[in-house]
């Protein structure tokens, strides 16, 4: 039994160690969980959207005017992003100062992700038949790159919030120890 517990504990430590980046709210002991969850959603959704653009970039034959499953999925991803932005805005009154500052920084980036993706989908829907294969590839490639960078920024902003909480706590402890 002891061995099994040890094994489970080791696995838990390993899994935690392998998780990419910081999890939102790890250090935010007093932070409302719902907001930390929204930060995680923002990170996941923007990353998902970026992956979908990347996948589109690999399919130059995708028809944007039809109901291709990829286009539908991307539009659903976009809607989810818009909903998360709305929820983050609604959650402002419950947020800690640090979370509020992160919401202020994440929301414009998320809005940019959805605006940029909407513009790209509209552009492709209207112009796909006029684009040469190379123009199409260049456009999708550049759009995918932009989307990927925005997703990375969202992820880093979520990490930043956790680090900020950590640094503020360390500063407080330092001040207390000096007294």
């Amino acid at each position, binding site marked *: 039994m002891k061995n099994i517990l040890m094994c489970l504990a080791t696995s838990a430590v390993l899994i935690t160690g392998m998780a990419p980046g910081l999890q939102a709210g790890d250090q935010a002991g007093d932070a409302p969980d719902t907001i930390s969850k929204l930060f995680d959603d923002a990170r996941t959704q923007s990353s998902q959207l970026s992956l979908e653009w990347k996948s589109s970039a690999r399919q130059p034959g995708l028809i944007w005017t039809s109901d291709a499953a990829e286009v539908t999925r991307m539009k659903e991803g976009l809607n989810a992003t818009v909903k998360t932005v709305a929820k983050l805005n609604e959650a402002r009154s419950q947020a800690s100062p640090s979370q509020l500052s992160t919401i202020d920084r994440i929301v414009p980036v998320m809005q940019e992700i959805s605006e*940029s993706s909407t*513009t790209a989908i509209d*552009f492709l829907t*209207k*112009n796909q038949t*006029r*684009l040469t294969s190379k*123009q199409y590839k*260049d*456009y999708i490639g*550049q*759009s995918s*790159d*932009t989307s990927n*960078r*925005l997703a*990375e*920024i969202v992820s*880093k*902003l979520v*990490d*930043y919030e956790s*680090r*900020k909480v*950590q*640094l503020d*706590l*360390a*500063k407080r*402890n*330092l001040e*207390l*120890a*000096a007294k």
Partner: protein
Amino acid sequence: MKKCHATGAIILPCLVAAFTCLPHPLQAADAPGSPAVSKLLLEAKKQSSLIAADATLLRSYGQSNLDWTTHGKQITRMRNHINAAAKTVTALDSLKSHAAPWQAVAIGRILPYMREMAEDTTNAIDYINKNQSRLSDKEYKDYIEANSDMSRELATLVAQFVDYGNSKGNYEKLQQKLEFPGK
């Protein structure tokens, strides 16, 4: 003491190289916009990396229990990095009205992080200078560690915003090129 300086001389270039390579490679001159602003954005990215490297170096001093007073040259170098970054912040701020839209957005986004980074690192250096008897305390080590982590996050954010701005500039340029009349 010589050994300490030699160690610092090896660690610092490695840290700078590591931080400079953090996110994507930068092609700031590729996107349309003011070349002067693009150059400054590139500077901002490099300087943030240097400050993050300095914060990591401070952390390594804490872990190695080296005598802080033997590192006067290093403190001077750190302060020089912070001063250079402050000059870049001022220059970017003053050129904002001449910048392309993507550049203005990038400036607006990176300046708060650069200021925060310079302030945090200055505070850490000042604390060390004033509290040398406490450098082995757990609270101090935790603080320096958190400061170093934070600097790394900030440097990455600055780099990502600059890279993203550049990518967006290219994307808009391409879209304009592909706009078809009478669609």
